[in-house]
C-alpha cells in the first residue's frame, strides 16, 4: 500500500466566506451560517442549486453544561442543507477531534469519488451566554468520574500538564510564551473580521495577565466567539472555469494515540509521538517535503500547541521551539521569519477552531489576501487542534 494520496491535487477550494468574529453575535448561529454559505457559493461563482454535498465538524467545544441545539449552538451539515433548501446527494459530518482536517478530508473524498460535484464545508462556533467551561455538576458520571471529583476538569488543566512537562524537560519558561501570543495578536490585529482587529497585545500585557491553570494564563487561551466560515470544494478540472484561482488539496496527515488514559489526559510524549507520525504521514500523503512549504500555519487554540506543531513540522529542533520563537523565528514581518501565525491563528482571531489556519493558507495561495498578500506563497500547510488529535492539511496553488 502506498501512503501517497490517490486524489492528491485533484480537488480544489474555489470560494469562501468568513463572518465577523464576535463575542456574541446579534443573529442566531444558524442564520449567520446560512448568510456565510450563500456568500461563499456566490464567491465561487456558483448557485445554491449546484451545491450537492455538505460537510462540517459540528462539535461544540465547551466543558460547560450548555445545551447542544442544531442551528443554535452548533450547525450540522444536514441542518445547513435543509435550511438552504437543498436535498443533498451527499451530507456527512466529521465526528472526531480535528474538525477541519477531518471535514476537509470528507469533502475531498466526496468530490474525488464523484459522490458530490460541489461540496460546501462550514465551521460554525458559538459562544453561549454564561461561563464557557463552568459546569455546576454535583455528580460525576461516566468519563467525568475520573476527573471532576479530583478537581481535574476542563481543557485548561488538560493543556497545562503537557505544558509543564515541556517547560521542565527543556528548561523553558512561561515568559517565553509571550512571543507566541504577541505574534498571533499582531497579525490578528490586521484582520478586519477578527475579534481582536486593531487590538494587538504587548509582552507586558501578557506577563500581567491572570494565571488560571499555571502555567496557562488568560491570553494563552483563544477567546470564545460566535463566528462561521464556509468553503466551497469542487474538482480541479471544474475549478478552471470558476472565477477564483483554485487552491488544491495535496494531502493530509492525521492520527490518534492508542494508550489508555484518563479522559483529557494528554501527556507530552503522547502528543509528540503521535505528532511526528502525523507529519510523516503528511509528507508521504502529499508528496511534499518540509522545505517545500512556504506557508505553515500552526494551531494555537492554546499557545503551547504552537511550540508542539513547530517541532512536529521540523521547523526547529525538538525542545527548541521556545527559544526559536523568542528569537523572532515566527515573526511574519521578518524576511527570514517563518510566517507560522501570519493569519493570526485562534489567539489573534477568536475561537474559530482551526479556521484561521485554513483560511490564511487559502487566501495567500489563491492570491486573495489583499494588503496582507505574501510574495511567492505556493505551498501551505494548515495545522489543526493538538497534533495528536487533530491533523494537518497540505495545499498547493493551482
Amino acid at each position, binding site marked *: 500500500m502506498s501512503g501517497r494520496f490517490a486524489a492528491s491535487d485533484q480537488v480544489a477550494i474555489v470560494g469562501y466566506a468568513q463572518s465577523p468574529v464576535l463575542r456574541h453575535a446579534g443573529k442566531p448561529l444558524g442564520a449567520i451560517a446560512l448568510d456565510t454559505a450563500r456568500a461563499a457559493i456566490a464567491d465561487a461563482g456558483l448557485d445554491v442549486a449546484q451545491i450537492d454535498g455538505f460537510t462540517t465538524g459540528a462539535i461544540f467545544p465547551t466543558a*460547560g453544561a450548555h445545551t447542544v441545539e442544531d442551528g443554535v449552538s452548533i450547525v450540522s451539515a444536514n441542518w445547513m442543507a435543509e435550511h438552504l433548501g437543498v436535498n443533498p446527494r451527499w451530507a456527512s459530518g466529521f465526528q472526531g477531534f480535528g474538525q477541519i482536517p477531518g471535514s476537509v478530508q470528507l469533502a475531498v473524498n466526496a468530490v474525488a469519488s464523484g459522490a458530490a460535484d460541489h461540496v460546501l464545508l462550514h465551521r460554525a462556533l458559538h459562544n453561549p451566554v454564561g461561563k464557557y467551561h463552568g459546569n455546576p455538576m454535583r455528580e460525576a458520571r461516566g468519563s467525568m468520574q475520573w*476527573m471532576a471529583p479530583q478537581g481535574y476538569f476542563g481543557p485548561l488543566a488538560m493543556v497545562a500538564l503537557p505544558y*509543564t512537562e515541556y517547560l521542565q524537560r527543556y528548561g523553558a519558561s512561561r515568559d517565553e510564551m509571550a512571543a507566541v501570543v504577541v505574534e498571533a495578536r499582531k497579525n490578528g490585529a490586521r484582520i478586519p473580521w477578527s475579534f481582536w482587529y486593531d487590538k494587538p497585545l504587548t509582552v507586558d500585557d501578557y506577563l500581567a495577565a491572570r494565571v488560571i491553570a*499555571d502555567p496557562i494564563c488568560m491570553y494563552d487561551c483563544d477567546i470564545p466567539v460566535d463566528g462561521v466560515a464556509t468553503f466551497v470544494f469542487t474538482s480541479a478540472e471544474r475549478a478552471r472555469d470558476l472565477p477564483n484561482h483554485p487552491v488544491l488539496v495535496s494531502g493530509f496527515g492525521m492520527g490518534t494515540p492508542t494508550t489508555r488514559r484518563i479522559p483529557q489526559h494528554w501527556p507530552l510524549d503522547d502528543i509528540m509521538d503521535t505528532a511526528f507520525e502525523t507529519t510523516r504521514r503528511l509528507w508521504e500523503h502529499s508528496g511534499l517535503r518540509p522545505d517545500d512549504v512556504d506557508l505553515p500555519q500552526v494551531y494555537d487554540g492554546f499557545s503551547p500547541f504552537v511550540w508542539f506543531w513547530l517541532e512536529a513540522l521540523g521547523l526547529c529542533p525538538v525542545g527548541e521551539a521556545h527559544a526559536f520563537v523568542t528569537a523572532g523565528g515566527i515573526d511574519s514581518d521578518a524576511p527570514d521569519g517563518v510566517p507560522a501565525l501570519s493569519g493570526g491563528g485562534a489567539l489573534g482571531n477568536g475561537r474559530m477552531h482551526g479556521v484561521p489556519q485554513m483560511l490564511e493558507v487559502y487566501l495567500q495561495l489563491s492570491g486573495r489576501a489583499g494588503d496582507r498578500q505574501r510574495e511567492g506563497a505556493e505551498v501551505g500547510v494548515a495545522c489543526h487542534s493538538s497534533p495528536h488529535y487533530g491533523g494537518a492539511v497540505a495545499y498547493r496553488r493551482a
Partner: protein
Amino acid sequence: MSDAPTTRPVPVPDKHSQGYWDAAAEHVLAMARCSRCGTLAMPPDIVCSHCHSTEPDFTFVPVSGRGVVRSWTVMHQSFVPGFDDLVPFVLVDVELDEQADLRTIGRLVDGPETLDGPDAPLAIGARVVVTFEDLAPGISVPAFALESP
C-alpha cells in the same frame, strides 16, 4: 483525613468502576487488571487496551499508591463546584510504580508552596504516595502527598 467540602462533584460508580470506588472508600488505591494478560488499566475499560481481549474479566487489585510526579498544574480557578476554598491547589500527573506509563491524576494535598525555591520539593520525578479525601460517607477520592515534603 480531609475536611473537603461535600459540594464537590462526587463520583457515581458504574459496573466498570465499582471496584475502584469500593476500594477508595476503604482508602485503598486499586487498579483494574486484565485477567487475560495481567496489564493494569487506568481508568478501567470495557476491553483490554493492551491485549485487546473483549473478555478481560477485569479484577481490581490494590497497588502501592506510590509513584513519581510526571507533571503538575496549579489551579487558580475551578470550573466545577466545591473547590473555591481550595484554590490555588495543585494537580499532579503521577506514574505509579507498578507498571511503566501507568498514569493517573489527582490533587496534591501539599500546597503550591511546594514549588517554591531552587530545591522545591515538587519537581518532575518527585516521589508521592496516595492519600484520600473523604467527600461523603462511603465516598473517598484518591489524591497524592509528597513522600518527603
